[in-house]
Each structure stands twice: as C-alpha cells, then as structure tokens.
C-alpha cells in the first residue's frame, strides 16, 4: 500500500484548528491516491468530491490527494472522477486519519465501507496472506490447512489432527502466532502441541517470513503468523454470517457463526462469534485410523466504542479442543516402536468408524481477555495501550490401567498464565517517516503437573522497540528500520516431581531490522530485508528430562544453553500486472547457537527397556531456500498457478569446537514441495443476468484443480532416524466456489464451496508427520460448505 503524498493544505488546516474542538472531532484527514484499477497507473489530476459538502480536492500529478478537516463519525460520500475512467464512489465514515486508495474501474460502481486503519505500515519484509475463498475453504479444518498452500510455509503434523505451521524450515518456539493483536502464549515448545487458534475468527491470515522479532517480539525469530479479524460493524443495525461445512473423511461437521450489532445512536459495536466442530475416525486409503476423532467448541466476543478521542476495544475468546491421538501411535518402548515401524498396517488399530475419543487424547483450553485503548493525540500522533491476559490449560490423557488411581486423571498437565501490557506511541508521516515507539511488559507462570517433562517456571520480561518507515510517493525507494531490546528472566522450580530444578536464568539482547523496497517499475518491486533476532532457550531445552513417547527417545536438557541468534536476509521480487502475479523470495538465515537434539550413541536404561539418549546441544546453523509463487492468465478466464518451496538447513560446526567438513543436515526440514494447477474463473461466463445465478459483485466463481508434489527428503541427519524418509508423492485436489446475491436488494450473500482433497485416494506418508512411522495419511476427503452473510 503506497501512502498518499502528504500535503497539508496549510491555510485551511490552520483555519480549522483555530476553531475549538467540539464533542465531534472535525480535523480528520482523508488521504489517498487515485489509481487505474487495470494498469495501476496513477490518475493525475483526478477530481475528488465529498458529495453534499462542497468540499473536495484535485489530485496532484501522481494521483495523490488530501481532504483535511473531515468530521468523525459522519457519513460522507466520496466520489473520484477522471476524464479517462468511470468515476468511483465510496461511502465512508472516518474514525481515524485514513488512507484510502481509489481504483477507478471501467464498469464498476463499488460501495465500500471503510473503518479505522492501523497506522503501522505493512512490514518491509517477505510476507504472504490468505484471505477470501482460499481461507474459507480451509477454515473448517485447522490453522495448518489454511496456511499450507502458501509458498515457504509447511506443516509439522502429529497425525492428521495436530498441525503446526513451519515457516522456511523453522517452527514451534521460533515463530510467533499473533491473533487479535495478541501473541499466543501456549505450550508452543512441544511439536505435538497444536496452536490454540480458531481460523474462523480471522478474515485474513498473513505469514511474515524471516526475522520479525522487532515487530512481534522474541517469539518471532523466524517469522510470524498474523490473524486479523474482520473490522467491527460501522452502520447502525445487525449483520453477521452463519457457516456450515461437512467433510466425508472423519464424517466431520463444522458450524460457525458471528453476529455483529452496531447499537443505533451510539459508537458501540459488538460481535459475538462461535465455532463448533466434531469429527470421528479418519480413513486412510486402506483402513480407519483408530481414535483420531476431534471435538472443538470456541467462542469469542468483541466490542468497540469511542469516548471523545479515545477508542476502546474489549475482546474475550475461549478455545477448547479435545483431540484423539491415534491408538497405534502409543508405544511402550523401542521394541514396540520397531514393531510398529516394521508393520505395513498400524498395530493395535481399531479399524472401524467411531466418534468416540478414547485415551490417549489431549484436552486443551485457551482463554484470552484483552482491553485496548487508543487516544488520538493530534492529527499526527496516536497513543495506544493494550492489556492482555491469557490462560492456557493443557491436559494429556495417556492409556492407563482403568482400575488404578489414574483412572480419570490426566497423565500430564500444563497450565500457563500470561499477562502482557503494551504501550505504543505511533505517528502518521512526518517528513515522510511513519512508525512508532513502544514498550512491552510480560509476566508468565507455568504450572506443570507432577511428573511432567519440564519444571514449573515464572517468567518476567520487558521490551522497548522503535520502528520507522520512510516512503514518499513517487520516489521509488522505501526504507524501514527497527530496533528492539528484550529482557527475559525465568525462574524454574520444581517440587515433588522427579525432575528437581531450582534455577534462575536471564537473557537480554538487541534485535534489529532494516528493509529497503525499490519500485523498479510500476509493476515490479524488489524488497530487501535483513534482520537480527534472538530467542532465549526455552525451559524444555534447559531442563527437560524424560522419555519422549512416540519418538522413542530419552531427552535431556542442558542448563547452560545460550540464546539463539538469527541473522536473516531475504530478497523478494514481486511482479504484478493486471491478473498476472509473480513472486520470488530467496533467503538465508544464519542461526548462531542453534539448539537441537543431539543423539548420544548411548542408551538410557528405564523400567520399559533401553531408550537412545538425545541431549540438547547447540551449534551454528544455516538455513537457506527459495519460495516462489505465480499466477498467470492463459485464456478464457483460466489462469495457471504454481508455487514452490525449497529449503536447505545444516549445522556449520559441532559445539565442541571441531569444524565439520561435511554438512550435518538439520532434522525435520520440509521436503521440496511444488504445487501447480489451473484456476478457472467463471465470472464473465456467469455475467448474463438472465441465468438467475449471477455471481455477486466483487466475488469470484471459480474452479481450481491443483496438484501437490512433495519430493523424497534425502537430506536427513545420519543418526537418530529409525525409518527412511517416505517416498515422493503427488496429490490432486479440486476446489470450487460460487457466491449468490440474495434478498430484494442483493445485499445478502450465500457463498457455497466444494473441496476434494486427495482425489485419487493415494497412499502416501509425509516426512514431517511424526505418525508416518505408524500409518498412511488420510485418503480422499470431500468437503462442502455454505456461508450465509447477512
């Protein structure tokens, strides 16, 4: 998004500020640019009129305009016209100084309602988003499903129901998940702990790739996943949506809905949202996967209102989930594991359909409460503050003797309380610089049930950050610089557990980011970003001690680990013209003191036999790779689509100081993955209104056929792998969507969709699925969905 040229119409602005402020604030500015929707050329000297007020402006040679002194909360009709194009009208209500670009089409009269827009510019860093129909098709499954189409993003699975996103080869503690403007605080260290996120709460999900620590904190060493909810309702009245979906595999049903209410005559807007999901045993091509059912029930509420120059927002969410773990994946010792691996079909598997979720299963609740208040200090400056409370309650139920005292208790429990306070001072462009400074405080308490793998701990942390962006249209260069300091102190204690620890560790470090965007040509942009980010070692890496079931390994932490430091550079080239879209990102991520599990060539004797020992160790590592995406129109509304993700990662030297001449590949790196297919957009075909099922304005009617090819992973560490990486495979999927306009005034929408995953019922196993030792991945899955928006 390019900023409008900032030009204060001096005299008028001064005149207006001289008038004392009434209850209604009348010095908001609307900035923007008029752009040709097809060519993206700026429309010089376009006329901008605020209908009925006699106000307006003429855009400059670059299409940029400013209309100062508009009133808050008043509905304006803004029309932009230009001799070469049809005029475009938007109905707006300002709550903030707003940037709004007008894309002048040839045959479209759009009505868009605009509400508050964040001051912070989008990151000058490689990022990809999913929204609209692509997001809608995956919302009913899980967060991983919603992201796995994006180049550079892959999924780490523990069975089909537990999915964690992997950004450019890194996951768990090395990436941050930011939902509703709050970084999710759960038990993210565990590879089998799925993020507690309901994708239905998001309108857009953005993956920021590379070191994003300055913007999103120490958790975002390798990137961040940002979920943005739809804005609250602006016009008085009630709106909302109801979504129903069903999936053949697992006989799953999903119901979700949201209701928005703008209380008439006030500034108060309220939303309540809920999601319910239920699924049973999934089916691989040859057998059911016993105990793979899942149940989920989520609620959220959001309210926003204004008092004077204050804007308030309160949010509360509750996420709860019960996930069955494949019974066949439950093993006692190495012999069991070897037997499970050697068997072509899963052992101890109940090959029937059932909705029952028996032991082993996970039960997780996540609660969030958030209050955000921002204050518009002046036309240029804004202060915002946010307090967020999170409570994460995870319980893991293992297979036990029913007659024992453990009959109805979990075998592992983790409870994590987090308080976070954010204060920020942000500004609109001043001499073409925009950005802000801020501070953050965080306090955490983690309570681990007796016998847990990790000790209890309390964490205190603080951060100071500064982030500024320079841009001046039509200057082809944009710059971004950011600096942040974080401090974390963790006190790990355990009483009553077998793992006795009482240690205080503290870490502090600077992180930084610098980015340059160069608009080489109106359609071609290059972005170069380099960032330095860090991450303190997590309590599990410092103090873990015990057998990691499922992996069949004995793991032990190392209390003297140093923080990981990442130096990430990425270069992105983006070409966009009409409907052609090409993106290429090359990156290199050097991580000093990368923490990994090092096999010890020794066994630890336990009462269930001997397990191979893995100790946490650290060494410098490098990850580099390429992400590419392309969408090119061919003919008749058909576009060819392709995406590729390639990553290589290896250790540079062992921590003993000895340098290795060969590359020690890092474990669990995503396989090379290609997606290619065709998308047929039928909007023009369906334009003829007499057919009665015309596509609603601004929506897409499409059919997409997509193949995914994952190559065989040959770059695996020499030791510690009990089973060869699975063979390469290609899967086909089909997707289709259409949106009906309903009601007398065509204001209601009915969005229907169809998805078929794994069309050929192909038998395959994913390298990044821990359960590849035990079973094939699920077979064909037919999904239908309908969403009624009113």
């Amino acid at each position, binding site marked *: 998004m390019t900023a409008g040229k900032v030009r204060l119409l001096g005299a008028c602005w001064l005149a207006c500020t001289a008038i004392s402020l009434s209850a209604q604030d009348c010095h908001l500015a609307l900035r923007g640019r008029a752009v040709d929707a097809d060519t993206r050329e700026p429309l010089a000297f376009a006329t901008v009129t605020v209908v009925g007020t006699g106000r307006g402006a003429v855009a400059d040679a670059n299409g940029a305009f400013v209309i100062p002194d508009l009133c808050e909360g008043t509905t304006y009709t803004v029309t932009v016209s230009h001799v070469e194009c049809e005029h475009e009208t938007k109905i707006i209500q300002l709550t903030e100084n707003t940037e709004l670009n007008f894309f002048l089409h040839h045959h479209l009269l759009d009505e868009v309602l605009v509400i508050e827009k964040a001051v912070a510019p989008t990151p000058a860093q490689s990022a990809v988003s999913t929204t609209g129909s692509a997001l809608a098709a995956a919302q009913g499954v899980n967060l991983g499903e919603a992201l796995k189409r994006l180049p550079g993003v892959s999924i780490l699975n523990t069975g089909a129901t537990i999915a964690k996103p992997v950004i450019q080869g890194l996951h768990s503690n090395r990436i941050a998940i930011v939902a509703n403007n709050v970084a999710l605080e759960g038990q993210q260290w565990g590879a089998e702990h799925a993020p507690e996120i309901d994708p239905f709460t998001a309108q857009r999900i953005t993956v920021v790739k590379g070191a994003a620590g300055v913007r999103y904190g120490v958790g975002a060493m390798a990137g961040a996943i940002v979920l943005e909810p739809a804005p609250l309702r602006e016009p008085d009245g009630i709106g909302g949506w109801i979504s129903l979906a069903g999936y053949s595999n697992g006989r799953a049903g999903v119901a979700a809905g949201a209701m928005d209410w703008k209380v008439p005559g006030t500034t108060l807007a309220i939303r309540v949202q809920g999601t319910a999901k239920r699924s049973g045993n999934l089916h691989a091509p040859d057998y059911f996967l016993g105990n793979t059912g899942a149940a989920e029930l989520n609620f959220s509420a959001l309210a926003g209102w204004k008092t004077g120059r204050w804007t308030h927002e309160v949010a509360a969410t509750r996420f709860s989930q019960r996930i069955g773990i494949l019974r066949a994946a439950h093993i*006692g010792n190495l012999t069991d594991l070897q037997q499970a691996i050697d068997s072509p079909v899963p052992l101890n598997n109940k090959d029937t359909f059932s909705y029952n979720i028996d032991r082993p299963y996970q039960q997780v609740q996540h609660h969030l409460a958030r209050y955000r208040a921002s204050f518009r200090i002046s036309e240029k400056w804004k202060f915002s503050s946010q307090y967020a409370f999170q409570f994460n309650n995870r319980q893991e139920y293992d297979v036990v003797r029913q007659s024992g005292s453990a009959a109805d208790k979990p075998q592992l429990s983790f409870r994590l*309380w987090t308080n976070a306070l954010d204060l920020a001072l942000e500004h609109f462009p001043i001499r073409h610089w925009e950005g802000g400074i801020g501070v953050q405080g965080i306090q955490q308490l983690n*309570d681990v049930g007796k016998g847990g793998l990790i000790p209890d701990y309390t964490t205190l942390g603080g951060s100071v950050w500064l982030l500024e962006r320079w841009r001046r249209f039509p200057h082809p260069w944009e710059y971004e610089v950011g600096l942040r300091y974080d401090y974390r102190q963790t006190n790990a204690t355990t009483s*009553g557990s077998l793992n006795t620890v009482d240690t205080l560790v503290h870490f502090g470090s600077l992180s930084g980011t610098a980015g340059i965007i160069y608009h080489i040509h109106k359609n071609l942009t290059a972005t170069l970003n380099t960032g330095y980010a860090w991450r303190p070692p997590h309590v599990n890496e410092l103090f873990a*001690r015990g057998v990691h079931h499922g992996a069949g390994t004995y793991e032990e932490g190392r209390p003297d680990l140093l923080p990981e430091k990442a130096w990430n550079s990425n270069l992105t080239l983006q070409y966009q013209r009409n409907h052609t879209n090409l993106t290429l990102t090359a990156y290199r991520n050097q991580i000093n003191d990368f923490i990994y599990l090092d096999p010890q060539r020794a066994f*630890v004797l*336990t009462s*269930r036999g001997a397990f191979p020992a893995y100790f946490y160790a650290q060494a410098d590592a490098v990850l580099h790779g390429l992400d590419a995406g392309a969408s090119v129109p061919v003919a008749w509304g058909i576009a060819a689509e392709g995406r590729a993700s390639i990553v290589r990662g290896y250790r540079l030297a062992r921590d003993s100081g000895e340098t290795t001449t060969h590359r020690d590949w890092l474990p669990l790196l995503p396989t090379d993955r290609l997606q290619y297919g065709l998308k047929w957009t039928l909007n023009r075909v369906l334009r003829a209104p007499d057919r009665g099922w015309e596509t609603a304005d601004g929506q897409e009617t499409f059919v997409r056929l997509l193949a995914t090819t994952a190559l065989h992973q040959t770059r695996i560490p020499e030791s510690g792998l009990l089973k060869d990486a699975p063979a390469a495979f290609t899967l086909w999927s089909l997707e289709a969507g259409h949106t009906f306009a309903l009601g007398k005034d065509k204001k209601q929408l009915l969005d229907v969709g169809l998805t078929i995953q794994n069309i050929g019922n192909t038998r395959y196993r994913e390298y990044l699925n821990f359960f590849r030792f035990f079973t094939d991945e699920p077979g064909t899955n037919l999904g239908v969905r309908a969403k009624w928006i009113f």
Partner: protein
Amino acid sequence: MQTNTVKFGVLAALLLAFTFGACKKDDDTEQELITTVVVHLTATDGSFDQEYTWDDRDGDGGNAPTIEEIALPANKTINCHVHFYDRSKTPEEDITEEVEAESAEHLLVYAVTGANLTIAAADTDSNGKAFRLKTTWTTGAASTGSLKVSLRHEPNKDAANPDVTGEVDAEVDFPVKIQ
C-alpha cells in the same frame, strides 16, 4: 483521558491479582510409573525363598537402576510371583493389584538366554487365557545367563503369538546364575 488511564490501571491490577490468586499447586495429574520389579521365588520343597529386585526409583534417566542378580539352586522346581511397584511415591504404590484386577488386559512375557531355566505358566486370566503373573520355574545344571521380564498392556491374546502384541508397560533384564 485521565479517568480512562485510571480505569485501565485498575482493570490491569485486578486481572493480575486474579492471576496470582488462581495459581496454587494441586496434584491433578496421575503418572503411571513402574519403578520397581520384584521377582519372588519360593522352591516347592521349601528349601529356597528369595526376592530379587530391579529398582529405578528416580524414574527415567538420572541415576542408573540397581539390579540384583537372580541366584538359583540347580535342579529345582520354583514358584515365581512377580510384583510391580511405583516407589517414586510415598507410600509406594503396588501396581501388581491393578494388573491382577485387569488380568485380561495384561500379559507377562519371559525370555531366558544362556541359563538352564524353563518357565511355565501357573495361572490364567479372568477369561482363562494366558496371564503368567505366577509361573513355575524349573532349573537345570549350573549355568549363567539373563532373564527378560516384560509386562504387556492390552495384548491380543487371540493372536498367533500374543507375546508380541500390545505395548510394553515394563521390561527389565535380570542377570541369572544357577549354581
């Protein structure tokens, strides 16, 4: 502006207080841990009565387990009863009772290497199928070797070889000497 800041502070303080107040340690989890396996051996002629213990009461990792050598008289018939305990708890938990109560869902497996020792079942489960918590041992001539004792949970006792089905709850090795 002033009042809002105050309100915000109060809200934050309240939530903080709630958070700390909500946190107290309780034992809501129950780990099933077998730290100790005891083999109780009594000769049918009353000439021999001994217990041999495999013990790792600090759990997985940490200190190595202590393992006693099973020393048996030659050419005897000996009754064996195996016991399982969790001695990481105080008082210790006798898991043998739970195993006996769910005999149909458990199976003990014995594997002798080297020593002149044969082991035969002396009990059945609640369905009349193999259980082997109690066994009869017959020793031969003097020899040394080892014995692996496994406790299997949820085996398929109808399988061709039930000894490799289910999953291992405990599996320990004792050195064996027959003299």
